């Protein structure tokens, strides 16, 4: 195997990893606000991408406009879900919301199948398929485009969380809900914002990944890799989610190069279990001290 080929495989893995990282970020944003997992994150991604695709076909929109449609759909759907079903359950145990989102994911996938069938569809890409040659190394514009777009979104999220009032409020809620409320932060608003933000991040990830994995009712399963990435990085840590996603993408791609076919597909999960056993808080996470 030449070094050039190896570089291509790693870059391709980083591109996939970026999608996992975006999924993980979306999960972590909701987790930090509401201390729960959103099992429906993958299906939210799938539905917003389908809506963008349908709008594009019906109205002949340019790709950039359908990205906007996806983002608006993702945000609106997340807002509605939070408002109608999640908010009333938040007070109970951390399971209730998990089970509710599990139910939502089943419902969304069924509905998508009823509306759009379970077929796979090609989705147009912002980036071309022909390789760019850098000496002997060939890089695909698709991979570079996904990496570039994801990194910009991550930087934007970083800026939002670090420098805006809203971001500070969200971090405060993540640290201590009661204290945040006493400081005059509307915790409910933070919940809603977190869901909308997660919906938007998911929608962008959907539009980026759909040309690669194709549009189908199954594409929501990427959420499982998002979970794995978030746990590897340390659930709750945003830099951890990004690192975990990238690492997972690269590991997934390198495993078939060097490991026998019997275990290569278990590698991500074995890594996950190993990390949970050795360092339960993940690579960059902090051990959580919860009180009664």
């Amino acid at each position, binding site marked *: 195997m030449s070094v050039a080929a190896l570089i*291509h495989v790693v870059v391709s893995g980083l591109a996939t990893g970026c999608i996992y990282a975006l999924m993980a970020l979306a999960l972590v944003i909701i987790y930090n606000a509401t201390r729960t997992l959103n099992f429906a994150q993958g299906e939210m991604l799938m539905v917003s991408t389908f809506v963008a695709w349908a709008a594009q076909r019906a109205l002949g929109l340019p790709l950039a406009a359908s990205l906007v449609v996806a983002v608006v759909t993702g945000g609106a759907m997340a807002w509605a879900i939070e408002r109608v*079903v999640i908010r009333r359950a938040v007070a109970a145990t951390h399971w209730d919301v998990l089970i509710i989102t599990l139910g939502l994911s089943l419902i969304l996938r069924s509905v998508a199948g009823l509306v759009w069938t379970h077929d796979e569809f090609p989705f147009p890409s912002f980036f071309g398929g022909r390789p760019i040659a850098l000496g002997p190394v060939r890089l695909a514009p698709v991979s570079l485009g996904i990496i570039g777009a994801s990194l910009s979104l991550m930087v934007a999220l970083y800026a939002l969380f670090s420098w805006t009032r809203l971001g500070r409020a969200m971090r405060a809620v993540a640290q201590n809900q009661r204290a945040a409320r006493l400081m005059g932060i509307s915790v409910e608003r933070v919940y809603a914002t977190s869901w909308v933000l997660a919906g938007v991040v998911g929608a962008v990830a959907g539009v980026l990944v759909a040309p690669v994995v*194709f549009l189908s009712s199954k594409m929501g399963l990427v959420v499982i890799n998002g979970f794995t990435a978030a746990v590897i990085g340390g659930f709750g840590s945003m830099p951890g989610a990004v690192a975990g996603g990238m690492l997972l993408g690269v590991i997934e791609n390198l495993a*078939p190069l060097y490991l026998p076919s019997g275990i290569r597909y278990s590698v991500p999960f074995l890594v996950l279990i190993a990390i949970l056993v050795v360092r339960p808080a993940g690579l960059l996470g902090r051990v959580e001290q919860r009180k009664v």
Partner: protein
Amino acid sequence: MSPRARRGLLAALAVGLAAWPWVAPRYFVFLASLVFVNVVVALGLNLLSGYTNQLSFGHAGFLAIGAYTAALVAIYAPRVPVVVTLLAAGVVTALVGLAFGVPCLRLGGLYLTMATLAFGFVIVEAILSLDALTHGADGLRVPAVRLGAFGTFGDTGRYYLTAVTATLMVAAAVNLVRTRTGRAFLAIRESEIAAQASGVPVAAYKTIAFGLSAFYTGVAGGLFAFVVGFLSPDAFDVFLSVDFVVMIILGGLGSVPGSVVGAVIVTVLHDSLAAFQNYRPLIFGVILIACMRFMPGGIAAATRRMSMRLVVSLVLALVTLAAALPAGAEQGVTDTEIVIGCSNSFSGPLAYTGEQATRYGVDLYLKVVNDAGGVNGRKVRSVYYDDAYKPQEAVANTRKLLEQDRIFAVIAPQGTPPVMATLEYLDENRVPLLFPFQGSPVIRGRKYVFSGMTLYDRQSKMMIDYLVGHRKFKTFGVLYQDDDYGKAFLTAYEKDLARHNLKLAAAEAVKRGVTDVSAQIAKLRAAAPQVTFLVLTPGPGAQALKERQKTGWTDTVMVSSGPLTDEKYLGLAGDAAEGVEGLSLWPDPLISDLPGVKAYRAAMQKYFDKNEPNRYSLSGYFAAMLFVEGVKRAGRTLTRETLIGALENVRNFDSGILPPLSIGPDHETQKQGFWVRVEQGRFKPLTDWLKSD
């Protein structure tokens, strides 16, 4: 409830359960066995989730360990009585569960949930990779149940086995709650910290709960293996784990009667929704949300102390209902009607193919025939149930089709594991299995089976003979799907190349549903084959073409297998498909001007104008055409035997779609294909029909 009323109810329950196989139709005896299996799983899951607050999404993995353990014991030690086998299944599962659980139990709540989810996936991968023992993706046939000197079991025997086991397990669970361990579980459920503070060694009890839960689920797995009779890794996916979670959420966390009620309702609901594919997950999703919003604590909490009475009433109501159920007409043929059907994928990985082949393929031709007055005065009606590519559901659906709907023949089911799982059963009942949508040679040489698609070994032979003989290629690589479909082709390629004194230069596996094939393509490219076979499904197949384009790999001819050579794959790959070659099993459904294909398009336009013509629906349409031809030839006295005789005598049948077709005693209907190359986004024929004889 007074103790006396309680005893009375329990006695009534015992009588009802014992009488069940004698009052209920055959299918419901089988369904009841499945209910008992699920009751045991629900109890096991509830021991963990309900009492120690650890939600698990990996119980399908535990079920798999138990099932495979029992199956292997039954295969390699056939004289071992079933009680020992079930215990072994439970113990092995408990040991694996503890080996996994002890380190993971340090994790709380969500993290343990994640770990169990990962565990489920690892177990499926382990089954796939231990294929010397488990037969990997091909699936494993489970021998009949033995109870020492009593010989083997039939349906009724299996029913009593599951019923007795489930009853014992329920009794054990009820009593467990009254022991020191049970009290500790309850304390942990109420508050882990308070329990710890009161001197309950929480970690130890959580470990016990985990082991017990795995033991219960392992025993259930053993029962599952015997009831279903066929195992494959597809059976134990994460959605099965989700079904189990639905059972205990609906029934009630931390409640034994709740587990039972939840398992009964979910199993029965699952079964009765088999015909409403897409609505099944929808309804389960609504149940989950409704429970959480309006009925936290599930049915058990909603009915408080009534729940024991509820269980009993439920069972008694079911017994009465089943006794009143009608048994259908004989053999699915009346003076005015023929009923056929199949279990197929309407959800899961091959949902699109399944739906097209049946509802838009078989049914399309049947509509044409029925609107023209039917065959020999009889209209043909079809019934389909969804198996989501899971063998256990294919078994349940096929039994339901035969025992409840009384179908005459099975037509066009899909996928090797689901078809294999029903093969013995159909054979025993002498039911024709017609034209399954799968090409694995394992179905060859059976009296009641007629193959559909050109079998994979024939496809391989045509491909290799053409490429080596006519095109003079010397080096070959394969990118194949890591399942029965890919492996059947791989074996056949190796054999056919050996005939030409050649060997495969490289073979790389792709897991079903994978999203990135760059590593596999890089490895294949390093071997520099002149020809690279793609034995994949449309999504990954198109990804392989795009990956080739991305890396600028031009000096290989990519060749698609028969099932892959279709318009869907071209559409997904876009301009990356240019120059790709392949073996085509069907004429182009969109532009071919063969009379049969034109008629197919006209019918599609007439009955389903929104559905694009495609090869899956064309293959189903053709299957129905061949079936109707057989029925015509069998004449007015239509029985399963006369149909088989008539089909065996089909000579030069001109469908206008495929070349004139003759079926001989080998029961292979299709043996041909032709070579195509992609030019400007369409398959252009390069050869006439190739022969594989």
